[in-house]
């Protein structure tokens, strides 16, 4: 009789864990998957290309319903788990479905942050998280003109770009003065802003949203300085928060996220957690690379395939906006002990920065020319001493004699 494995969350982290598990121990578990969304498993980070019209929904599906059948996995779509009974090791869905588990994986992901302001419930106020959001945006674009995206981070800019391509007049509202401040410094942000403006995107930098105004549907965005802009659609992209409601209610130890150890175990027996819902050593996650790492480690645990532990490592980011090349990794700001190498060709919108500490790369921002991003990223990962080719490194791998690195 096989052990029962239940996965809550039919998203990228959870399903990647299942994929990894099937590689290691295909026959070990009876697997049941609960997904709140009415789809199979799809690549969430490809939603931007879908919005931008570069891809269709079908193209971003990772596993369709058929796949689950082929692998004898029970899939419950459109069902949200409302309770975990840790005593008798079962989960209960909103439709009453109850399932026993020997092992449970929490992969509930994260929720978009919704600003606690008046008018946040108005029609035409959405976030950018799932296929549903994308569909709303595409539909709205057919009938309305003015879109306001609140938040100039990665997601916000991808949404803004998509809406622009869908034909809307888009303004990005950003509270700070550096766009994508998780990934860019001021110089890179300025270069990107300039390029996006030439593409037709508008920016309201250092604007703090006070409220959303409208009868049923949103009509205006009002800012703290009293100024207003018209809006037919407002997309809130001010960040995500780990979705821990279920875990908390079930008494699983949480802080900002579901607490996990080096093997992705929660502090409650037989329960694992992966993905954006977890908190690992004070760190939460928003990018795909570490999620896949977690999936590997978690799967290995479930397969009892041994002891590799999760180690959080620096992550690199690219922006999925056509014509915008940027690459960012590690600590690209630095501190008093760090040193900066900077190359700029502003009229070509090229900016490259490496941050070094003790002759090792600790971070980089590349804008315009990202061709050496992965090389820098591997030098960063390998902690390579770059003093031997410090004066050439910024000009690319082809400038440096191979046996030096």
């Amino acid at each position, binding site marked *: 009789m096989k052990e029962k494995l239940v996965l809550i969350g039919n998203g990228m982290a959870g399903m990647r864990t299942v994929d990894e598990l099937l590689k290691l121990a295909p026959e070990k578990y009876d697997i049941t998957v609960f997904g709140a969304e009415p789809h199979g498993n799809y690549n969430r980070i490809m939603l931007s290309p879908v919005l931008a019209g570069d891809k269709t929904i079908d193209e971003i599906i990772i596993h369709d319903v058929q796949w689950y059948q082929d692998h004898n996995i029970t899939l419950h779509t459109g069902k949200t788990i409302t309770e975990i009974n840790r005593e008798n090791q079962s989960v209960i869905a909103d439709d009453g479905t109850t399932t026993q588990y020997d092992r449970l994986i929490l992969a509930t992901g994260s929720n978009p942050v919704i600003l606690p302001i008046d008018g946040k419930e108005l029609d035409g106020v959405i976030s950018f998280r799932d296929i549903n959001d994308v569909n709303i945006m595409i539909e709205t674009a057919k009938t309305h003109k003015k879109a306001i995206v609140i938040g100039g981070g990665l997601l916000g800019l991808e949404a803004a770009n998509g809406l622009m391509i869908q034909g809307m007049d888009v303004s990005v509202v950003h509270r700070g003065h550096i766009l994508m401040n998780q990934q860019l410094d001021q110089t890179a942000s300025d270069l990107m802003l300039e390029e996006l403006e030439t593409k037709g995107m508008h920016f309201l930098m250092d604007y703090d949203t006070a409220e959303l105004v409208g009868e049923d549907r949103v009509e205006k965005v009002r800012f703290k300085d009293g100024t207003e802009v018209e809006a037919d659609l407002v997309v809130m992209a001010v960040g995500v928060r780990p979705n821990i409601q279920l875990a908390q209610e079930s008494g699983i130890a949480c802080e900002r996220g579901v607490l996990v150890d080096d093997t992705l175990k929660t502090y409650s027996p037989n329960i694992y957690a992966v993905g954006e819902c977890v908190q690992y050593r004070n760190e939460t996650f928003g990018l795909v690379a570490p999620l896949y790492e977690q999936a590997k480690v978690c799967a290995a645990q479930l397969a009892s395939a041994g002891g590799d532990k999760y180690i959080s490592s620096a992550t690199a980011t690219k922006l999925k906006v056509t014509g915008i090349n940027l690459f960012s990794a590690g600590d690209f700001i630095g501190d008093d002990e760090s*040193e900066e*190498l*900077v190359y700029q*060709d*502003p009229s070509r919108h090229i900016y490259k920065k490496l941050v070094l500490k003790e002759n090792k790369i600790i971070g980089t921002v590349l804008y315009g020319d990202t061709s050496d991003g992965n090389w820098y990223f591997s030098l960063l990962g390998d902690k390579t001493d770059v003093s031997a080719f410090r004066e050439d490194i*910024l000009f690319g791998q082809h*400038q440096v004699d191979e046996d030096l690195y």
Partner: protein
Amino acid sequence: MDPRFREDDDKNIDMNKNITTSTTCPYCGVGCGVLASKEQDGSISVQGNKDHPANFGRLCSKGSALADTVGLEGRLLHPQVNGQQTSWDTALDAVADGFRKVIDEHGPDAVAFYVSGQLLTEDYYVANKLMKGFIGSANIDTNSRLCMSSAVAGYKRAFGSDSVPCSYEDLEQAELIVIEGSNTAWCHPVVYQRISKAKQDNPNLKIIVIDPRKTATCDIADLHLPLKPGSDATLFNGLLRFINNNDGIDWDFVNNHTEGFAEALISAQESEITIAHVAKMCELSRQDVEQFFLLFVNTEKTVTLYSQGVNQSSSGTDKSNSIINCHLATGRIGKPAMGPFSITGQPNAMGGREVGGLANQLAAHMDLNNPKHHDIVSRFWNTGNLATTAGAKAVDMFNDIASGKIKAIWVMATNPAVTMPDADKVREALKACELVVVSDCEQNTDTTACADILLPALAWGEKCGTVTNSERRISRQRNFLPHPGEAEEDWWIVSEVAQRLGFKEQFDYSSSADVFREHAALSGFENDGVRDFDISGLAELSDDEYEQLEPVQWPVTSAKPQGTPRLFTDNKFFTESGKAQFIAITPRAPVNAPSEEYPLILNTGRVRDQWHTMTRTARSAKLNGHISEPFVEVHPIDAETFAVEQDALAQIDSEWGTVLARVHITDTQREGSIFVPMHWNQQNASLSRVDAVVNPVVDPISGQPESKHTPVKIKPYQATWHGFILSRTQLKMPDTHYCVSVKGEQFWRYELAGDSTIEDYSAWAKQQLGDQGEWLEFADQTAQRYRAGIIKNEQLDAVVFVAPNHELPTRTWLSQLFTEPLISDEARANLLAGKPGADQPDVGPLVCACFGVGENTIKDAIACGAAKSVEDIGQQLKAGTNCGSCIPEIKKLFG
């Protein structure tokens, strides 16, 4: 409009015809024939003249690049008085009045001319005639004083006349050539090529190079004697003694045609007892000395070829006589394939000697202190005011200017503020002098900077006249370019002043032919073979014949209308007794010995592709490519002792001055000696005038300075930063402690270093280059590394590289980008790396100036096995196939 096109210029020549003009190279004393062709578009091309007996078509790198140097940028084109442009009349009046005033108040010896081996014979003649014949002072001296006056004095002591006995063809017929104190390969390249060809054709030809440095000339040497600087006379005294002890003496010749052998031998024996002793004194190996002595004794057909290494010495005259002694003792003179052969540094040093353009000569090889000569010249010139006593030789002349004894000086076609020893003092003296007149073709030189009156002279290609090369061969320089601006012939300028001084009919010349005929007539006047210099055969030339004059070796007389390849064939000399004179030589050490404070000996000289103070050669990007910066050659052991690094900068100090130079560590240099080239000056380098360091010490007889022996010390130059700028447009010289500017192909290069820190490199760079254009910048603040590139209209406009030390990218690849009409994206991306990146060649430092072939290109050809010999390189890359002066360097690359 090109000021060359002056409607009113009757001398103007038609620019719209293709013409090929046969003329003579204006550089070294080899005196090569040059064919200058002018295309319809006005562009000029030059090639060697196959019919000219000096070079038979060969040209060196400098000669080949002559066309690059005839541009008008930087030329002095109008008369100027106190910085104001004036008419010729005003300027000439000012000169005449100025000189008259000084002469009236202080006498004729209070004025002086300082002239040049760059002048044509006609110019030289008129200047000498004015000063000695009519102003009545012998205060006319010349930069030839710095070059070969010791050789002159040596010849005069031995032969009673300043007679170079040999011809170049003697070198080709010889079986032993002793090259002493001459880097012939670089300084007389075409003579060197004739010698190396001769060696190829005749395996029996042995070549011995005597030089403290292992120069490129040693490439063809069977034996190199790196003797102790200044010990030449010891070596040749030893040789004389050895000749005597080994039955080498030609007693018949010595007894019948010479005097003073016994005395000479005695002093030789006193000073040099044995070969071992000679070897010790000269710091040579006994075997080498013996091999040299034996070769000399056993080889009848021996030419000793000597130059500045012998002449530029406080005992230069004795050194040349110690050489001549050995040729007299063996009777090796006046016959084919033998003789003591001094080659001169300048195109017309010989012409200057012929007209008597030195302070201790009169005219036409006649002597000031000879009453008979005095009478002849007085009558010929029809003057009662002929100078009777020698004037001030160069070094004394500038001392007299400093002391105020001389109050007015006229400098013609030379740059004493750069080339005189203790040059800083000379520059100060000129600045303080009451009246300084300078005739030159350049607006800006270190000397014109000191002038009150500037007179625009014609340059090579514009002026016409004659020059005499090292083998007494008179050749025409012909003009193929019209007169630019208001520039004029020097003989015309001097005559105009002479006439204003009241000597109308004596200076009423209508052409250079006019002047030449008078000069030729004087040489024959009451001569009858008693004076060596006689070109009376040319005194009756018509203007056409003068125009057509073919190269000819003097004497040229009715008896010898075709000239005279070899002197003393009759064993008759121009002394009282008609016999050649041995001179008893007691070797003297250089005046200033190294000391604890100044432990090293500074040697100076030329590089391959530059000429004198670079006013012309530095106009050629090609020529600047070979050696772009002032350098100091240091032996590895000295480099270690004094902690100077390869390619870093060093400061060299003497009691007299300071220079900065780039360090080249090489064992071709003797331990204890360093070498710095003579060329760089204030116009192109902030602190690299080597003559500011050179001691103002002279030979007591010739008055020639000891430019090859100054005690100095060397230390690393402690720069806080190094850098370079390449700019499409010429910049104002950046005001940094070390700065050298170099003209390149469509760009200017500035090599920089400083001892004061630059706070904001980016701001500093914009100060130098302005903030126009698209700026690319690279900054590594903590490593003190800054780089910038400027692009204008998709074309590279400038780059700036700054680093904490001298380790910067090579300039080669960056330089090439300036010749490209548009900068490629790839080049733009790699620009501030300073190199093209993977699998794109960097041709490396220039080796062949003629075809612009770089070191790496040649190395690659060798590495891939495509080239197995210098000849292969020539076939595949053309390198070394034109002037051949780079062949020694190519050979080195074969290792």
